[in-house]
């Protein structure tokens, strides 16, 4: 094994009603995905402020993924539609700034889709690992 194997830092925002439950289901079914993924629970995907994502990249995250209910199924009826539009805009701006599109993702995972959650995370970690470390937005002052 390599000593300095690159392990990306990944922040996953999951809405409480679908995706967080989907993540729990992945756990109950013992579906493995990399430990690099750390979930932050938010009430709805629309709670995710672009600021949080910028902050994550500034602090050295290598990838950020937002998971919400499927379109039409948001617990608050319309939250994920806002998420979809906001993130499309933000991600293309981030891409312009050098945060490759592969580092950001929005995915719809329902409470019953444990397998999809695990698969999404495996895939996302793979993509981000291939892209390597995020250097673009990282604020070196944040490193102790």
């Amino acid at each position, binding site marked *: 094994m390599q000593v300095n194997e690159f392990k990306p830092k990944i*922040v996953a925002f999951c809405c409480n009603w679908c995706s967080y439950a989907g*993540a729990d289901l992945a756990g109950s079914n013992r579906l493995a995905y990399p*430990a690099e993924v750390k979930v932050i629970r938010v009430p709805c995907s629309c709670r995710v402020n672009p600021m949080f994502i910028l902050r*994550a990249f500034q602090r050295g*995250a290598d990838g950020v993924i937002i998971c919400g209910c499927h379109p039409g*199924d948001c617990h608050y009826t*319309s939250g994920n539609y806002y998420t979809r539009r906001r993130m499309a805009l933000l991600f293309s701006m981030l891409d312009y700034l050098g945060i490759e599109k592969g580092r950001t993702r929005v995915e719809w995972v329902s409470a019953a889709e444990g397998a999809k959650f695990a698969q999404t995370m495996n895939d996302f970690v793979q993509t981000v690992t291939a892209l390597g470390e995020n250097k673009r937005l990282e604020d070196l002052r944040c490193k102790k």
Partner: protein
Amino acid sequence: MQRIGVFVCWCGSNIAGTVDVKAVAEALKNEPGVVHSANYQYMCSQAGQELIKDAIKEHKLTGIVVCSCSPRMHEGTFRKTAEAAGLNPYMVEIANIREQCSWIHKDIAEGTEKAIVLGRTAIAKVNLNAPLMAGESPVTKRALVIGGGIAGIQTALDIADAGFEVDIVETKPTIGGKMAQLDKTFPTLDCAACILTPKMVDVAQHEKIKIYSYSEVVDVRGFVGNFEVTIKKRARFVKEDICTGCGLCTEKCPQKKVPNEFNLGMDNRRAIYIPFAQAVPKVATIDPNYCTMLKTGKCGVCAKVCTANAIDYTQKDEFIDQKYGAIVAATGFNPISMEKFDEFAYSQSKDVITSLEFERLMNAAGPTAGKLVRPSDGKHPQKIVFVQCVGSRCAACAEKGKEYCSKICCMYTAKHAMLTRDKYPDTDVTVFYIDVRTPGKNFDEFYRRAAEEYGVHYIKGMVGKISPEGDKLMVRASDLLANKQINMEADLVVLAAAIEPDKSARPLATMLTASMDTNDFFTEAHPKLRPVESPTAGVFLSGCCQGPKDIPETVSQAGAAAAKVIGLLAKDKLKGNPCVAHSDEMMCNGCSSCEKVCPYGAITYEDKEFRGPNRTTLIRRIAKVNEAICQGCGCCTVACPSGAMDLKGFASKQIMAEVDAICK
């Protein structure tokens, strides 16, 4: 500065198996704000909770972090624990180190490291928590049951018997659902009508129950305790309160060629009809797709023969607004369409039928008055083949079938086979099966009786193809036990079609904001511990809309759902969710961005006086959140350009602290 206590749970070996819990407790000791850190085998047990309470008092904790299972599991438990020790329940945060850590990782070092990060993240958040107080809202003491099958009927009766008002909304002209179409029921062979129709009458006569038949729910607003629902009562062109159900019109109507859906199109009814003799309400309905009077303005026979003057061709759809405290979904199931199963020749031959059609053929009130005959030529079938699992347990045929087991088919097929042999001992009955599943009281005994006492041939193997040959059907199948191919002639083939949720369930779930699984079954709040509640507060589940089940199970679930509803309606006031939006009036500039994205209309504006420079006063427009209406999605917090809007319990600062802790 907070004084935080950290409690790491082993969950037996569930967590401790892949996470070094002691190391986690030790590592978290040094996090900012932490003054106490402990680990214990089962934090959720009485002893574990005592340990937390004692620590809160002893160390004067102002916040706690429990590193344990998912907050969806025990957040409520630990909030109560904290409250019992005098701490505000919203000063509790859970680090999910079971579902999202120990259960998915195998390597102890990796699991421990991640658990520490998750613990650190929760600590970072709790450092910024503030005590929250939940507001209270009154409860409307009336329940809505959507669906009038046996599930809805039982739920409504149980709620009404406890003294609460209940409305049933049923799309069909009568309640009764699928059970009303059944002949006998397994494993006791009671006649379905004999046990169902008295219940239907009870519903009709119950002073606390109101039936909206031929109606549907078209809009749901509000939240637990305070739902506002719009019900569309479709025009049936008959005055419900006047019609006596004498049935004269249904005999005189000249339009005789309407496929009778109650008998699955195997016979015809008139354009004005009462679905079946024991219908509740026993009122005629005019089918606007077939009525000549409604279509061309010429006829009017029913109006002429009606002695009660109940016919009203000008009736319009009616919209009724009603308030409810709780809503029960009981939308039921349907057999899947057999149209796509070409291999079974369902569309080609009239003698290939579904089990529900067989049920009607065997029923004394059915199209043949209970005589089992071939639909094609009316002849008595000698050889009958039953095919189980048609479209069930079929991962390969996902575009037309279902991956899951429909659960009831093994038993009803055994019932059909047994009843056939009982009524017509001269028939030869063969059942093709993948497995026979009989988990239920007296189920296996029942199946064995069919096979052993009634001489039904059970062959393990799937049917590959059925083709009409002359007036016979050729069944090609494999016998897995004898390991050979079988070609068998049959007079009648009965397909045990998979069942699926009713089509109305999906739009209803959207209206209720209740979640569904990939098969359109409603999901329960917890598959084991809260099986009759939807994750959406105030919405409950009854019967097959939650998953395939038989009648005994449906009735038990219906009663359980009723008990939950009664528990809710018995409360005078409900504690709301304090995690709602809040606008900082000093930062708000009244731009209306938040109002535009709020799905509940919870934000209004007011003009407020502020002190300006040099002793002047300034009037500024600021946003106000109505806490009773806000559901706490947080959409407005992102829309707010000035950063005035924030969400309690999930404040921007808290989430950023979590981000920082993860990225550290």
